[in-house]
């Protein structure tokens, strides 16, 4: 062990030495740098033909160029550019110019003129396009200089009439990126053209190109106007913009930068929706959407009638129309976009689900028209009944409009689409719209339920999730529940579990529904026994949600009889447990229910309350001792108890904060008691478990520190050092461990808390340093650990610069004051200073963050104490199923470690192993074999499922294999 430690120390030591060494090398490199531009010059001059020159340039592009030499290099490139006759070389030079202008720290304003000049006598269109691209880079690098931007805009306008589409594209992009953001602000007063002289209205210039002959240019023009970001990204940006006014964000295009697009463009945008080319249509959908978000309430006329509607409704109708476009890319785009148009009026929204309404609902409907509609709906066949499309009454065909059908049936089409991408987009859009409109949620229910039957599992799963999200708005009818429950027989585990999750949140209307659900769930349990936990949990929620509906079912469910005793059911039967879970959870808020229980039910309750306490709630049972008095008090108090517990937590912390110095025994006692209190609180109040745990651990660290620094320990005689050192070292070690746990095991920490934790760690490290000094192991070692410590102090300062003001009078604060002295002084002196500062510094008060949760992991499979060990033959592979629920993890894909250790039984047979597993945060899946060998396995991202907020589920397989153990 000692040897190992020593080795580690040496490793660290050698690292420390290496760093300055590397720095020296870096410096050397820098010396050779100025020659780079010269080298390029030489290379280019040497090049006899264009191919060579191109080769040199390509090689050159692979190496980075430092800031200082960028300008020189650019000059050389430009010089060569004028001499070069070959197009491809000039193109490469142009692209290099752009690349170089992007170099960090280089300001390209000195090369603007040169770059613009190169445009003047360029004949090749491709090179021209590339040069404009370079100018775009330069322009976006110089956001602060309006003069440059004006010039660039002029250049772009000049080249807009080029015959090559690429040049026009780039010009439009340039206009979009650099067009004046300030223009709309001065728009009201005389317009930008008069105020800024040469500046023209960028928008009208760009909009001229909506009718360009080349579809690529049309697309570029639209993109220049609205930017590239889709609705998903834009919604928050827009919201922000509304609150904060216009913000200019560079590198984005006109709209994205906050330039308000004029409403006049709306008509043009709508016309572009019927363009021949899909990329134009797709971009146009985006533009119509942007306009509908900017001017939702303006009024637009309906062509061929003298009525008017809101712009957002009109846009909604037009985009809905695009859901039946010929190109699936456009359909996806349209379906997605629909989901973010929340301001649309409800009757337009509801039209999207109704294909049969053929009459043009844009106009206000009279009662007469509505009556006609009834005939219309009679005319059209549902395909469910024989001959139901036989004409019944002659209807006036003028009422039925097939062509301009507006939003009619957009989602019906979207959900039936050939491509599953479109279907998923439609389901998601439905979800978004339904969340904001309860009546729509009610309507789309049937459609979502239909999607449970889709041929692609992804779509099925998505629609179940969506239904869960909107389920707060809806109550399922019996027939709807029936179709939902039919999916419980699905062979895919994901689908079933998603459905269980859905059932946890659904409201049902009648007791028959409850019975139906229970029956189907029991059937499910029977068919797929592995779903046990999920089914139980589902019934728990079902029971606690509908106590009144369960009550009339209780005698039947528990098969009790008014006169006869019925046989006692088998306690281990999962189905019986499922029924009990339902009943007990309903009984929690229905005090009359326990009267219906028979004797054995009470016994079973006691058993289940113990064995499955997370599923069975505490009940106040008549004639029974209140065994769980504390719990029931808790539950009866409800939410107020949470508040009082929070208060208690805060008070304990305040009390502790009064401790100023760490000397007196009374203070230690106080800490001890507080820790104990907090731990108990965590057990009682699950909502605050994380916070209480966190505080307790923190205080324990403080306590340990306090004990280690006890005055009397440090004044003992030399021979007693050893023993005292052992306790102090152990304490320091423990504090370090605890601080890592504090930092990584809890979610919801703010940087303030992290700083506090790091502070404690720093204290522990100081303690370690002092102890090292006292053992007198050698000066070298001491020097290196001193240096290491100082580095840590520095890095602390760097990391938590913003938090330093809150750390007044703390250990770090004092250290930083003494820093200049510490750096120069000798190790022995440093240790001495540390010792006094450490002992003088007070306890740092802990401020609790709003939400703090402890990351936990529960392993469902494999169970720890399995009776039948897994066997595998050496050299072959065995798969071990792992199923675990992880809570409050930030990024489970990167932060989970499952440790599976294979253990040899006593008789050392090679093929017999049993498993136990445990979870640690921030690590990977690790398999430990009995011979100490270990494998680290990364679970695939696909193995993680997210059933709820802050919850993840890992279902994966670990492959084990090992050669024979001899």
């Amino acid at each position, binding site marked *: 062990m000692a040897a190992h430690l020593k080795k580690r120390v040496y490793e660290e030591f050698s690292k420390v030495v290496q760093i300055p060494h590397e720095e020296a090398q870096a410096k050397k490199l820098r010396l050779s740098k100025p020659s780079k531009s010269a080298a390029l010059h030489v290379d280019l001059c040497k090049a006899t033909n264009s191919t060579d020159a191109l080769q040199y340039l390509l090689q050159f592009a692979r190496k980075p160029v430092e800031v200082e030499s960028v300008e020189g290099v650019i000059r050389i490139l430009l010089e060569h550019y004028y001499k070069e006759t070959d197009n491809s070389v000039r193109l490469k030079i142009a692209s290099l110019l752009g690349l170089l202008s992007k170099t960090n720290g280089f300001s390209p304003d000195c090369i603007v003129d040169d770059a613009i000049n190169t445009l003047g006598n360029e004949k090749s269109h491709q090179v021209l396009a590339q040069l404009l691209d370079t100018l775009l880079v330069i322009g976006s690098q110089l956001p602060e200089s309006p003069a440059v931007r004006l010039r660039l805009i002029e250049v772009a306008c000049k080249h*807009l009439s080029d015959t090559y589409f690429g040049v026009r594209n780039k010009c439009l992009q340039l206009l979009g990126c650099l067009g004046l953001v300030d223009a709309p602000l001065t728009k009201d007063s005389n317009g930008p053209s008069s105020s800024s002289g040469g500046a023209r209205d960028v928008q009208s210039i760009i909009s001229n190109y909506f009718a360009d002959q080349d579809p690529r240019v049309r697309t570029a023009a639209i993109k220049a106007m609205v930017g590239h970001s889709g609705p998903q990204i834009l919604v928050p940006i827009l919201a922000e913009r509304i609150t904060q006014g216009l913000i200019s964000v560079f590198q984005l295009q006109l709209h994205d930068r906050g330039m308000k697009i004029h409403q006049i463009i709306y008509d043009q945008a709508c016309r572009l929706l019927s363009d021949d080319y899909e990329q134009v249509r797709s971009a146009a959908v985006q533009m119509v959407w942007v306009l509908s978000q900017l001017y939702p309430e303006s009024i637009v006329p309906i062509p061929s009638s003298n009525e008017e509607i809101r712009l957002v409704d009109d846009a909604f109708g037009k985009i809905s129309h695009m859901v039946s476009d010929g190109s699936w890319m456009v359909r996806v785009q349209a379906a997605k976009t629909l989901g973010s148009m929340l301001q649309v009026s409800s009757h337009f929204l509801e039209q999207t689900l109704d*294909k*049969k309404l053929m009459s043009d609902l844009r106009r206000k409907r009279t009662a007469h028209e509505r009556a006609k509609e009834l005939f219309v709906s009679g005319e059209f*066949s549902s*395909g*469910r009944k024989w001959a139901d499309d036989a004409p019944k009454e002659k209807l006036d065909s003028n009422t039925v409009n097939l062509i301009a059908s507006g939003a009619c049936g957009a989602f019906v089409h979207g959900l*039936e*689409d050939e491509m599953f991408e479109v279907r998923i987009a439609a389901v998601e859009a439905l979800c978004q719209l339904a969340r904001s409109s309860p009546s729509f949620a009610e309507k789309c229910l049937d459609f979502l339920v239909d999607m449970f*039957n889709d041929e692609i599992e992804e779509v099925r799963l998505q629609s179940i999730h969506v239904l869960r999200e909107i389920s707060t708005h809806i109550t399922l009818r019996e027939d709807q529940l029936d179709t939902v429950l039919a999916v419980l*027989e699905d062979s895919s585990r994901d689908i079933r579990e998603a459905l269980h999750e859905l059932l946890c949140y659904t409201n049902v209307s009648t007791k028959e529904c409850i019975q139906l659900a229970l029956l189907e769930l029991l059937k499910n349990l029977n068919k797929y026994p592995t779903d046990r936990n999920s089914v139980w949990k589902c019934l728990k929620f079902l029971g606690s949600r509908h106590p009144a509906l369960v009550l009339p079912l209780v005698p039947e469910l528990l098969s009790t009889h008014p006169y006869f005793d019925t046989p006692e059911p088998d306690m281990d039967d999962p189905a019986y447990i499922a029924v009990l879970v339902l009943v007990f959870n309903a009984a929690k808020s229905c005090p009359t229910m326990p009267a219906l229980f028979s004797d054995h039910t009470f016994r079973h309750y006691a058993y289940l309350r113990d064995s499955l306490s997370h599923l069975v709630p505490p009940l106040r049972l008549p004639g029974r001792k209140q065994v769980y008095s504390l719990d029931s008090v808790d539950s009866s108090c409800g939410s107020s108890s949470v508040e009082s517990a929070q208060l208690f937590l805060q008070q304990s912390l305040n009390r502790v904060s009064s401790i100023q110095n760490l000397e007196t025994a009374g203070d230690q006692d106080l800490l001890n008691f507080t820790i104990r209190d907090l731990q108990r609180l965590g057990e009682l109040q699950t909502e605050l478990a994380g916070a209480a745990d966190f505080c307790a651990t923190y205080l324990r660290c403080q306590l340990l520190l306090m004990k280690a620094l006890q005055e009397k320990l440090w004044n003992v005689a030399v021979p007693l050092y050893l023993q005292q050192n052992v306790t102090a070292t152990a304490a320091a070690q423990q504090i370090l461990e605890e601080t890592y746990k504090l930092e990584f095991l809890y979610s919801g920490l703010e940087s303030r808390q992290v700083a506090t934790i790091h502070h404690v760690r720093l204290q522990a490290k100081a303690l370690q340093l002092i102890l090292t000094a006292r053992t007198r192991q050698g000066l070298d070692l001491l020097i290196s650990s001193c240096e290491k410590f100082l580095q840590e102090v520095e890095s602390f300062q760097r990391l938590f610069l913003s938090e330093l003001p809150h750390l007044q009078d703390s250990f770090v604060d004092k250290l930083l004051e003494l820093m200049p002295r510490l750096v120069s002084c000798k190790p022995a002196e440093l240790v001495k200073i540390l010792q006094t500062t450490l002992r003088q510094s007070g306890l740092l008060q802990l401020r609790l963050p709003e939400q703090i949760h402890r990351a936990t992991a529960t392993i469902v499979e494999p169970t720890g104490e399995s009776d039948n060990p897994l066997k595998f033959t050496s050299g072959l592979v065995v798969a071990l199923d792992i199923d675990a629920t992880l809570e409050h993890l930030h990024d489970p894909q990167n932060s989970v470690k499952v440790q599976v250790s294979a253990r040899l039984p006593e008789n050392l047979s090679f093929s017999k192993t049993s498993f136990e597993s445990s979870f640690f945060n921030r690590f990977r899946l690790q398999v430990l074999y009995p011979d100490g060998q270990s494998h680290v396995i990364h679970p695939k991202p696909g193995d993680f499922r997210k059933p709820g907020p802050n919850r993840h589920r890992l279902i994966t397989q670990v492959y084990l294999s090992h050669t024979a153990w001899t």
Partner: protein
Amino acid sequence: MPEIKVTPLGAGQDVGRSCILVSIGGKNIMLDCGMHMGYNDDRRFPDFSYVTQNGRLTDFLDCVIISHFHLDHCGALPYMSEMVGYDGPIYMTHPTKAICPILLEDFRKITVDKKGETNFFTSQMIKDCMKKVVPLNLHQTVQVDDELEIKAYYAGHVLGAAMVQIKVGSESVVYTGDYNMTPDRHLGAAWIDKCRPDILISESTYATTIRDSKRCRERDFLKKVHESIERGGKVLIPVFALGRAQELCILLETFWERMNLKAPIYFSTGLTEKANHYYKLFITWTNQKIRKTFVQRNMFEFKHIKAFDRSYADNPGPMVVFATPGMLHAGQSLQIFKKWAGNEKNMVIMPGYCVQGTIGHKILNGQRKLEMEGRATLDVKLQVEYMSFSAHADAKGIMQLIRMAEPRNMLLVHGEAAKMEFLKGKIEQEFNCYMPANGETAMVTTNPSVPVDMSLNLLKREMALGGPLPDPKKPRTMHGTLIMKENSLKLVSSEQALKELGLNEHQLRFTCRVQLQDPHSDPDTLHRVYTHLKSVLKGYTIQHLPDGTVMVESIVIKVSSSAEDVNAKVLLLSWSYQVQQSPTYLFFRRFRPRFGIFFGNV
């Protein structure tokens, strides 16, 4: 004006016997060549004597195109090609070419072997006919001859169904055949690009129907089957061998897979097996899901669906049986129906249309007692369900296709006249729509654009004038000479035309004389005119040439004194006829009055 003529020989205001003659740009094309299910006499086949009284059709038709393998679209093909006589090319897609002979052979067997008809085409004739077939690929442009080209688009409906675009020069016609705009379990939706044909010939089977979401129908179907199976009942689904049957098979197969069901599903054998083989092969013609997953597993390799044997019908326990024919009028489906009708746990699901008079039609209309042959009656106790799984476009689908293709005219076939009338009314709000009956001809005059070769120099020169870019939305006039020579058209500049034709150029100039009184000598007068114009017309090039003329742009001004009166000077203005068009003309019109005023004052 050129015309496109469309004459339906069958399927005009009718369903069945699809056969449409199109003449476009001097070419004659026959679209589909089907038989009528409802007749057993001569009316069964289209009346080819319309094309020619006697003799072969080869001289009158440039090509025949078959849209898909249903018999009402290809049933008369061997009769036409072998018995009437046609040797030209017949176009159809690969799957149609593969499956079509199976169905024709089956049709022949039933008519000849079972009904004992004579004078019908033979197996050999089917084979000979198929030899004339040229297969088509989707989106492949096939040149029938130098001018006529055809292109196939995906139509859904059944495997290999295609819509065809027929194009001669800039005139074009699109024929849809039967198509489906909503995808189903095994096929995708019809798709066409914005080809803007002169006529779109569309089927209109469901012209007055807008169907509900397909999903609820599927769900209902599955639920009914599932419930019946759980009760321990038997389910009979009468189907036609090809088309819907495959869709229902896939539907049930995936449902069985998903729900882990164990009850057996049977398919009565026969031509189905052969056809299924082709379904497995033509994966590219199916929908997204099947195309994407066939590498792991071909969806048409059914796991749960097995071949049916007569004896299985008596097996105990639940089962699902697909049996032919679809209308329960004969064959296996009727036999099984008779066996199962007595048990109320059983169920029969009719997935399609039933002709009047068939047992299918009777039970769908609620008849519970059936009279069988031999005076026996049959009590129908089993449940009867109807599920429409028809794969035709509904009214909305037809409109969607119209929007996709953007035709100039519309022509409806393959539908009932009354229903067509309704849709026609709708369409005519936007553009012309025709619905000719059989034998009637619809004529559409077209306005084809005539392509002309233009010399590059002329194009560049004309582009330089006027706006910065050619705007496709605005026509622009230009000057040039059109040369028609040996069937080719060429647009060149006038100079080049003169050179090519070896003609001399003649100049036409307009002159005008203005008399004025001026005592100065001729050169002085001219000079005065020059200085005056110079001061008045800023921005124009004005030159005083040494030969005693003044040029304003291209207008020449000369001064000569008349012989009689020395003071009376004659001002000669001369300009070429091009000036009338050029900007100088404007100048001239604006300033000519001023000359008068100026000189009048002198």
